C-alpha cells in the first residue's frame, strides 16, 4: 500500500511517500528533504500525536472559560474522548498559567494545564 504524508515540521511541507507492507511495516520512505521528515513521517504512520488545546468552564472568573492545553501531545485517536472529558470540567477562578487542571489526563501520562492567568471577575 502507498501512503502520502505531508510533513509539517517546517514550512517546506515535503510530500513524503511511504510504501507500507502487509504487517503495516514501512518498506520505503521517500520525498523527505531531511532526517526530521523521516522521523515525523514514521511517527505519523505508527502513532500520530496531537497537542489538544481547548477550554474548560470557570466559575467566578473575568471570562466564563479558561483556555487549557495538554502539556504533551496525546494520541490523535484520543482527541474526541479528550474533548468529551474537558466538557465535564469546571474550575474556580483565580487560576494561574501552568496550573494543572487534570493530572495524568485520561491516564495518558500528560497533564491538562491552564494556558493563562484568569482573575476573579
Amino acid at each position, binding site marked *: 500500500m502507498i501512503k502520502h504524508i*505531508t510533513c509539517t515540521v517546517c514550512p517546506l511541507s515535503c510530500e513524503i511517500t511511504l510504501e507500507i507492507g502487509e504487517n503495516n511495516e514501512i518498506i520505503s520512505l521517500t520525498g523527505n528533504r531531511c532526517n526530521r521528515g523521516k522521523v515525523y513521517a514514521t511517527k505519523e504512520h505508527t502513532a500520530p500525536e*496531537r497537542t489538544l488545546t481547548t*477550554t474548560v*468552564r470557570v466559575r467566578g472568573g473575568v*471570562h466564563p472559560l479558561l*483556555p487549557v492545553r495538554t502539556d504533551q501531545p496525546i494520541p490523535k485517536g484520543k482527541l474526541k474522548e479528550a*474533548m468529551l472529558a474537558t466538557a465535564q470540567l469546571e474550575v474556580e477562578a483565580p487560576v494561574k498559567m501552568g496550573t494543572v487542571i487534570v493530572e495524568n489526563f485520561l491516564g495518558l501520562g500528560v497533564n491538562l494545564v491552564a*494556558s*493563562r*492567568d484568569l482573575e476573579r471577575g
Partner: protein
Amino acid sequence: MRKMDVDVAVIGGGPAGLAAALAARRGGAAKVLIIERNHELGGILQQCIHHGFGLHRFKAELTGPEYAQRFINEVRETDIDVLLETMVLEVSNQRTIYAVNSREGMLEISAKAIVLAMGCRERTRGALRIPGRRPAGIFSAGTAQRYINIDGYIPGKKAVILGSGDIGLIMARRLTLEGAKVEAVVEILPYAAGLARNVVQCLEDFGIPLILQFTVIEVHGDERLEAVTIAQVDEQWKPIPGTERTIECDTLLLSVGLIPENELSNGAGVQLDPITNGPKVDDTMMTSIPGIFACGNVLHVHDLVDNVSKEAERAGSFAAQYALQQLPAAARRVKVTAGENIRYVVPHEVSLDKPVEFFMRVQKPQEDVVLDVGGLRSVKKQFVKPSEMLNITLTPEVLSQLSGDTLTVRIVSPKEAGRQ
C-alpha cells in the same frame, strides 16, 4: 480633564504594544504608558487558544494566551503604566493623545514619543460583495473564534468556511472539536492560503474537504442562514456558469484577510502605504510624523507573532531614544522599492547607518529563486509564496556599499542573481 505627561505612549496592549512598551522602558524612557481599550492586555492572542506561537522566540510551541502571558508578566514587573478600558479617540501630529474611559472621562496625554500598535481588523462580508439576503449566521472567523474561545457560545451547528488562511483552518478544527460539522473550506486560490501544517492538522485530521478555486456566490435564508451556493472561478476569479453547488449550512465563516486599523494614524496625518494599508516607516519604525512610530499588524499584517515582537521592540527602543532626544537625524536616506515579484517591503526608507531587518511579501508563488536586496545581499529560497512573509537582515557595512538613492528588493532566478 485629566492631563498626563509621558515619555512614550503605546496605543494598543496586544503583542506589539507589550513588546514596544518593554523595549521603550529598557531603552531608558522613564514614563511609559500602554493604552488599551479592552479590559485586559494581550490583544487577539487571548482568543488564539491553539498552539504554535513562539517557535522562534521561545523555542517552544506556546498557545496564544501563553505567549501573551509571558509579556504581560514582564510588564507587571516594571513600572510601566497601563490604562485599561480606555479608548483613544484622537492622536495629534504634535503627539497629544485624547482618550476616554468611564472612570475618568476624557484624558489628554502629552507624549514625547508615540508607538502605534493598534493591530488590524478582519475584512467583512461587505468587502466581498456576496449577494443575497442578510440572515443571521454569517461571521468573520475571528468573531466566531471569540464567541467560542472566550465567551462560550457556539455560532452554529453546520458551517462552511470561506478562505483557507490560517484563521479559517484553525476555526474548522475548533468548530469540529466543539461538536459542529464543518461541511467544507472554500478557497478562491488554486492552493491553500494557510500553512501546510494547518491543512494537515485542522482539515485532513477531521476529513474536512478543502475546495480550491471556488467561492461563495450566494447566501440563502431569511432569518437564519440556510445554505450557500458556491461556484468554481476562472483565472480572473469570475464564477463559471454551470459549476454551482449548494451546501446546506447555518453558519458561514469568512476568513478573507485582515486590514491594519489606521483610523488614528490617518487622523494624525501619518502617510500610509496603499499596498500594506499601514504607515510608511523608516528603519527606526518612525512614520512620516516625527516622534510617531508604528509596529505590528497596524503596520503590515504578519504571519508570526515572533516577528511582531521583534519589530515592536525595535519601534519601542527607537521611540525611547527619540523621547530622550538621543535619536540623531540620518545623514543619508535611501528609498526602498519593491521590484520583481515583490508586493511590498517594510521599512520604506533606510539610513544605511544601522542594521535593518527587511520584511516583505511576494506577489505570486515561485520555486528555486533568489531574494536580492539592492544587489548587496541575496539568499536562495526553495520556494516563496504570498502567504509567507520573507525577512532578511542587512548590516550597516553591507548597506553602506549602496550607490544611488534607491534600494530595490527583487525575486530573481539564480542565474540573474550573479549578474548584479
